[in-house]
């Protein structure tokens, strides 16, 4: 500390490791190991740095003692085994590799997407408008269908909850995908979009009723499983298993030996004629494809253990969805091949495998078109552009990178810079981007495309600040 006379004073000395010890390890500097190495001469195991640095963020939230506090995010608690901090998650975001949604430089838009945007602009009558990028969407859904063709024994379902837009549903159905639903309302919507019941899979924490003639229905808990086995809603009745060392509100926690024994008992008394399945859901976009494969393999292993203990066999293993488009395109196929081999080796019934991609197919398939409605320049020179689309139109704008472009006679990708894009509402968080380089000649009335808005940005969009009109 420097006093008023600029003299330095040592006023505190803590001869202990600080609270940010894990962050240092993530940056490649394992301080406790270095100390032990220094003291004992034993070489510490080398640490592969996952970041060049880190930022420790502490949030102080005032409490009202009589009011329950909001629960801490489960993702933080399970971020790295015993470590309760979110540092590993933050580190993965900073690392910028395939295992996380990372903040990276905005890439150039593909030619097909640029043409899609120009075509979409010609169709709209007003803004903001969420538009289908036709060629891009067709390519995404064709990739899913092609994956199923290349891997015999694999079925692919479209995750309806991701974006139930009729045009996307049509693309999925035309390419032979099943429909994956999480509610009776979604089942009804899938039927109205043309799926027969036996091409629909039902997941979700709320049970459905019996005699639905669905392809598969997976129970989120043992009470629901028992109910399904009594009055099956589907040809295949299954149970969602939560892998060990995963924190989630969903699935039967096989990590609990008492619950595992109850699962054995429940499956063991299932009617002999009832086809059975297991499911597993973990977003690879959150945990990375390597961790996803580890847990998916563990679920197949637990399924094999259940088969051995019950004398039953599983006919369907549902691996859920949750891949980014990059993971789906580049990483998933070899992982699925390994899982299929492992399942064939361990499971007695040679089950079919099912995946349920959503954002991998839908995210790039739609964009939000908006107009610049206000422009101003700050004293330091950076510009602020306010659009007539905001956080209600792209509610996940801050959760992962969205490509941004200015659409005129041609499409100009917006790169990284110091300019800011804001939404039109009075919400402090209605900031679409605070690190973009807007064209020098950007003007009021210019069209901005916020791409990668076709997944949960669409299904979770909300209306705010636009009055009561539809």
């Amino acid at each position: 500390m420097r006093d008023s006379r600029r003299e330095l004073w040592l006023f505190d000395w803590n001869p202990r490791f600080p609270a940010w010890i894990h962050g240092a390890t993530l940056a490649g500097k394992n301080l406790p190991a270095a100390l032990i190495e220094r003291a004992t001469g034993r070489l510490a195991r080398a640490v592969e740095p996952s970041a060049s640095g880190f930022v420790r963020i502490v949030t102080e939230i005032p409490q009202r003692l009589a009011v329950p506090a909001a629960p801490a995010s489960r993702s933080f608690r399970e971020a790295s085994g015993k470590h309760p901090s979110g540092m590993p998650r933050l580190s993965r975001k900073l690392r910028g590799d395939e295992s996380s949604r990372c903040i990276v430089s905005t890439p150039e838009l593909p030619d097909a997407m640029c043409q899609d945007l120009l075509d979409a602009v010609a169709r709209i009558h007003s803004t903001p408008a969420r538009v289908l990028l036709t060629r891009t969407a067709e390519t995404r859904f064709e990739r899913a269908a092609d994956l199923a063709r290349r891997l015999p024994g694999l079925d692919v379902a479209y995750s309806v909850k991701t974006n139930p837009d009729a045009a996307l549903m049509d693309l999925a159905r035309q390419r032979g995908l099943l429909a994956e639903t999480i509610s009776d309302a979604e089942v009804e919507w899938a039927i109205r979009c043309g799926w027969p019941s036996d091409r629909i899979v039902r997941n979700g924490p709320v049970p459905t009723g019996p005699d639905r003639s669905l392809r598969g229905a997976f129970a989120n808990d043992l009470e629901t499983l028992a109910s399904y086995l009594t009055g099956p809603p589907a040809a295949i009745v299954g149970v969602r298993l939560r892998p060990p060392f995963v924190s989630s509100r969903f699935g039967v926690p096989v990590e609990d030996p008492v619950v595992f024994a109850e699962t054995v008992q429940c499956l063991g008394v299932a009617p002999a004629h009832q086809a059975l399945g297991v499911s597993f859901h973990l977003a690879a976009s959150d945990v990375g494809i390597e961790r996803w494969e580890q847990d998916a393999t563990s679920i197949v292993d637990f399924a094999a253990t259940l088969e051995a203990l019950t004398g039953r066999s599983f006919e369907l293993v549902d691996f859920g969805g949750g891949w980014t488009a990059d993971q789906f395109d580049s990483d998933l196929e070899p992982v699925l091949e390994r899982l299929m081999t492992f399942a064939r080796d361990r499971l007695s019934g040679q089950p079919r495998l099912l995946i349920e991609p959503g954002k991998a197919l839908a995210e790039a398939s739609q964009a939000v078109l908006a107009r610049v409605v206000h422009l101003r320049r700050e004293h330091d020179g950076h510009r602020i552009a306010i659009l007539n689309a905001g956080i209600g139109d792209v509610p996940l704008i801050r959760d992962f990178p969205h490509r941004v472009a200015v659409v005129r006679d041609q499409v100009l990708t917006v790169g990284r810079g110091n300019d800011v894009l804001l939404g039109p509402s009075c919400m402090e968080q209605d900031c679409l981007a605070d690190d973009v380089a807007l064209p020098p000649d950007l003007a009021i009335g210019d069209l901005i495309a916020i791409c990668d808005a076709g997944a949960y940005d669409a299904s979770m969009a909300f209306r705010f600040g636009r009055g009561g009109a539809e």
Partner: protein
Amino acid sequence: MKSTWQVTPGVEADDRVRDLLRDLEEKPVSRLTRHAAPCCVIAEAWFRATARSAIRRFGDEPRWITERWNWGPTVWPIAWCEAIKADALDCGALADLAAVAFEETGREVMRVQLIQDASTEECEQWATRWATTPAAPKWIWGRLVYHEKAWAPAAGDPAVWYPEIVTQPRRQATSLKALRFHR
């Protein structure tokens, strides 16, 4: 198959150690028992499947065992179905679980019995804690303590002990007097 007790050089003349080794000559390593019922089959199957999950996630060292179970007194015999539901297990039960977890790695696994010297303060604290379970087996004689471990040496590096995985590290006794291997 068990080896003979290997006494730390310089300890051979210690009457306390020699007498204790004679008393423990026939003591086997701790093994969880199995009921003649599905409960223990299910329990062991669950444990092995969980151990394999842990190997995929975290590597071969079964540290998850000490993260899941506390160290504390155990009444023997204890069956698989009882052990996995217990809040705390002694070093023998933890060592048996660790050995089974190591088996899932494909490595050769050995059980180890040890006689160690601990401080007076440690022994008094442990004895006080174990006094709450009078039926738990005796393992403290003055400052000498009986301990068990599982050891799965890595290929090419058989002399490396695994870090203490079967008891709380901060309570590790400080001085090895004798040890014996069981394959």
